[in-house]
């Protein structure tokens, strides 16, 4: 474990524990303004989408790849479809991984 990793873990620990503990530390009833409450509900959607979409549409990080040869795109679409049909998350992951790995052979 090098210094950079130590800093990453230390920093992540600091902010994560900080967020979890700050209200417990105050020790009295606190409530959030409705705007903050609403905003927090959109954080997972926004962050996860912002990570996934570039990964899937530009698998090599530089070139657009929006066609059916792109196994990342087909795989993510599979996962999204299963999740959309209310399949369990684990099924979405496993099936889409199978599709992702098999795709190059399927279209060859």
């Amino acid at each position: 474990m090098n210094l950079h990793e130590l800093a990453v873990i230390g920093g992540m620990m600091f902010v994560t524990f900080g967020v979890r503990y700050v209200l417990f530390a105050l020790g009295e009833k606190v409530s959030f303004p409705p705007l903050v409450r609403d905003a927090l509900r959109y954080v997972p959607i926004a962050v996860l989408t912002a990570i996934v979409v570039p990964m899937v549409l530009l698998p090599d990080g530089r070139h657009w790849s929006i066609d059916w040869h792109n196994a990342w795109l087909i795989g993510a679409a599979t996962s999204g479809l299963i999740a959309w049909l209310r399949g369990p998350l684990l099924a979405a992951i496993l099936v889409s991984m199978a599709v992702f790995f098999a795709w190059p052979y399927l279209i060859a």
Partner: protein
Amino acid sequence: MAANEQSAVPEAQVAPTNLKYAELWHGARDSLPMLLGAAPFGLIFGTLASPSGLSAFGAMGMSLFVFAGSSQFIALSLLASGTGLAVIILTTFIVNLRHALYAANLLPHLSSLPRRWRIMLAFWLTDETFAVVQHRYGQADDSPYKHWYQLGSSLAMYGNWQLWTIAGILLGHATPMLEHLGLEFAMAATFTGIVVPMLKSRPTVASALAAAAVALLARDMPYKLGLLLAAVAGVVVGVGLERLSRKAAA
């Protein structure tokens, strides 16, 4: 009198201890579905650590000291793309902000506990434990040991996460070819599977579209700042549309 006291003292000590352990055990037992649900993610996290450039000790340290599944996953994908320290920490902060909501919910039940209890339960506060314990706190019985139930759930989730992280690290090392297989896709598959069921209304869909568009446009910004911009854009669009549609309905 003296004899009565002698017999009363051990009883008064033993019974609460048993009640505490019963709560501890029930908390762990009721977390079982959550333990099973978290297992594959611990495994995938451990397996993907080394292909993402995080050492085995780093992965273990992250599970031991950060203990926040989704932000650990996100940190892996950020590390793999060479993201700077500040953005990783800031992203972790934003992603974990929801825990403050959980803490606010639990606070009325925990505010009278000694500080060491509040520190422990805060460190171990996860989505899963929150889901399990808020049910218990809501039950009508006035057991004074409900925090032991939370401790049981916390310890079970924590131990489980460490075990599956180790298993993943070992798996990753036993099969060094993993990184050439494109297992990073597991991350994209996971995130997609988490996000899609959340897209149930116009504001949520618009939020995702805005985040995606900004992430794509700003993808070449240094330190992955584009990710933070995209998060802000998604949140602003989502909240804005939600408020607009509420106003229109009112």
